[in-house]
């Protein structure tokens, strides 16, 4: 996919989220910054507890009260060029902003759909809350249902339990686009579904993106899904974005040891016999994170510097960022792996 690099839709600046627990402050997200461009698909990848879901809930300000969000801003640019800071929205403005400018698709479609309402009623409710008439809403949603390859008329009249898991997920995808948002956030939308269902959701998503040109923040622990649909990939570890860049660069020329280790642990189907490696240990405690680089205890490249000095996020060629002291050694290793794979 190509996207417009000159037009930034969402600019996240220095965002941190802390949960207040009895033992202390859990630093779930620390100093995250990134830009999302018009039409761009950004995949946030990382393992459980890395802060990717917290980050996304923070973007739409849907975190529980125990979470404290701080930051220099979440700057959103409307289609007419007006810029606002989402962090400064009132609750009312936030409600208006959600769905019409920024929509969410969650994992587990059954939990996102009201079991006692027909799909049609959910559509009408949403539309009327945002000042759109019934006929217009109906017209739009039927078209969207066709675009996600659903039997539009039947699905429109159905209750959620009458639909299969894959159909529900596509209903959610269609509903998220009902108010023509510029940004859609998807949290593991293909995680709980079967292979062929996942394939149809991914295909549908690609088609919709090509036609409607919205931006996507895609959260996943599945590297394969990210490899397939992302323009840009950001790796998260222990609440930080440790590497971000164009998808091919991040996968083939990894500059952070964690990204490289994750890739070395992911089996691929069509490459014959593989030697894979696990990452030793487990993710760090976010209340008292280790000093220096938070990954150093599990890192095969770690040196004395890594154990004491937190690596800054440094910019490299091609609009890439990585926070790794040993980035040159990592890159060399990644390039060798790639060369071996191509041979």
């Amino acid at each position, binding site marked *: 996919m190509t996207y417009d690099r000159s037009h930034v839709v969402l600019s996240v600046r220095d965002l941190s989220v802390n949960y207040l627990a009895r033992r202390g402050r859990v630093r779930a997200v620390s100093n995250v910054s990134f830009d999302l461009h018009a039409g761009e698909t950004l995949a946030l990848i990382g393992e459980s507890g890395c802060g990717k879901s917290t980050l996304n809930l923070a973007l739409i300000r849907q975190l529980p009260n125990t979470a404290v969000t701080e930051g220099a801003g979440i700057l959103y640019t409307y289609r007419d060029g007006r810029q606002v800071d989402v962090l400064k929205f009132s609750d009312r403005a936030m409600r208006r902003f959600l769905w019409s400018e920024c929509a969410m698709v969650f994992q587990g479609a059954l939990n996102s759909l009201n079991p006692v309402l027909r799909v049609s009623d959910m559509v009408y409710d949403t539309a009327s809350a945002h000042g759109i008439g019934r006929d217009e809403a109906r017209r739009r949603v039927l078209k969207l249902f066709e675009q996600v390859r659903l039997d539009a008329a039947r699905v429109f009249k159905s209750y959620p339990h009458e639909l299969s898991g894959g159909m529900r997920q596509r209903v959610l995808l269609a509903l998220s686009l009902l108010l023509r948002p510029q940004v859609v956030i998807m949290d593991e939308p293909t995680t709980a579904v079967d292979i062929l269902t996942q394939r149809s959701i*991914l295909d549908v998503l690609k*088609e919709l993106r090509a036609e409607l040109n919205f931006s996507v923040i895609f959260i996943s622990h599945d590297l394969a899904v990210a490899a397939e649909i992302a323009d840009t990939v950001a790796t998260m570890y222990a609440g930080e974005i440790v590497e971000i860049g164009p998808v*091919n660069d991040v996968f083939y020329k990894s500059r952070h040891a964690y990204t490289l280790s994750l890739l070395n642990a992911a089996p691929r189907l069509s490459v014959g016999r593989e030697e894979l490696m696990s990452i030793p240990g487990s993710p760090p405690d976010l209340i008292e994170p280790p000093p220096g680089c938070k990954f150093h205890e599990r890192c095969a490249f770690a040196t004395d510097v890594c154990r004491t000095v937190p690596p800054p996020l440094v910019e490299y060629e091609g609009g890439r960022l990585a926070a790794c002291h040993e980035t040159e050694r990592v890159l060399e290793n990644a390039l060798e792996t790639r060369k071996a794979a191509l041979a």
Partner: protein
Amino acid sequence: MTPIVELRGVHREFIKDRERVPVLQDINLEIEPDEVICLVGESGCGKTTTGKIIAGLLNPSSGEMLVDGRSLASRSGKEEKLLRRQLQIVHQDPFASLNPAHTIGDILSFPLRRHRMVKGSGGLQRRIWELLTMVDLTPPGDIVNKYPHQLSGGQRQRVSIARALTVQPRLIVADEAVSMVDVSIRISLLKMLQNLRRELGLTIVFITHDLALAKYFAWEGRIAVMYLGRIVEIGRTPDVIANPAHPYTRALLAAVPEADPELTRHKQAMRLRSDDIPKLTALPPGCAFHPRCPFYVPGTCDVNVPALTDAPGFAQEVACIPVQQGQAAQQIVEDDVDLNPVPAHGLD
């Protein structure tokens, strides 16, 4: 060699809402000692039910299971008990399969004592230490007095495996045993299982929906692909993955995204005739895959149930009549991959 476990014409049905649900139909499977066999398929294909039958947790509705060449029913009570003990299972969810009120030491000591696997309290402790070391939970002293909630998902799954090993099984069914564990930790669990297999001469039945993982884990073993209660393809892993025979296997392999951007974006797509999976209570006649199958031959596939047998050009066995007749070979390449069936215009 006599198979350690053999399923012969196994059917299994469940009753749901007074309706008979045929979950498994005519499963024939021989599991050799020391082998790794992967059962793969989507939800509802019967892989877990097959695993439970192999582990002795469920009985077939009809057909029989032989252990070491003889059915369990034909053995004495004592013999049956011993054989059942040798077939163990590791469940998917380590949060649900370990009792939260017991320490890890307790969890391991119950089966050891119940089955008199050790002598005296010294022997018990030694064996627990040994088991924890075998699953790389070291030092064991740090683990024995902990409760499950104090361990990570990966550590808990190691405890589950250690528990299965308490009774010195010859076969372990691992039912989605690493699905709930993070990517970075999965591989070490799988490697540990492989090491245990080699050291203890274990047979492993590995059940997963993740084809890439199946390929990695069972590279030296076999893969059986299941669809709606039947095995549709079975053979050596490299054969099935590199040269899939059954159209369903081909569709699955084509559909899986790969952790490699170039590879995954240039994969040959395979479009099925329908996305809908038939219900088990209303299975299509003939081959259950025919309503979705791109190789469908009217008058054949919707009438005859294909047998699982050899096919020309393939080293593995496959249950597909067109493939067995050599007709489907040319159709592998999908000629018309239309990714944009919807007119390309926006909402406005």
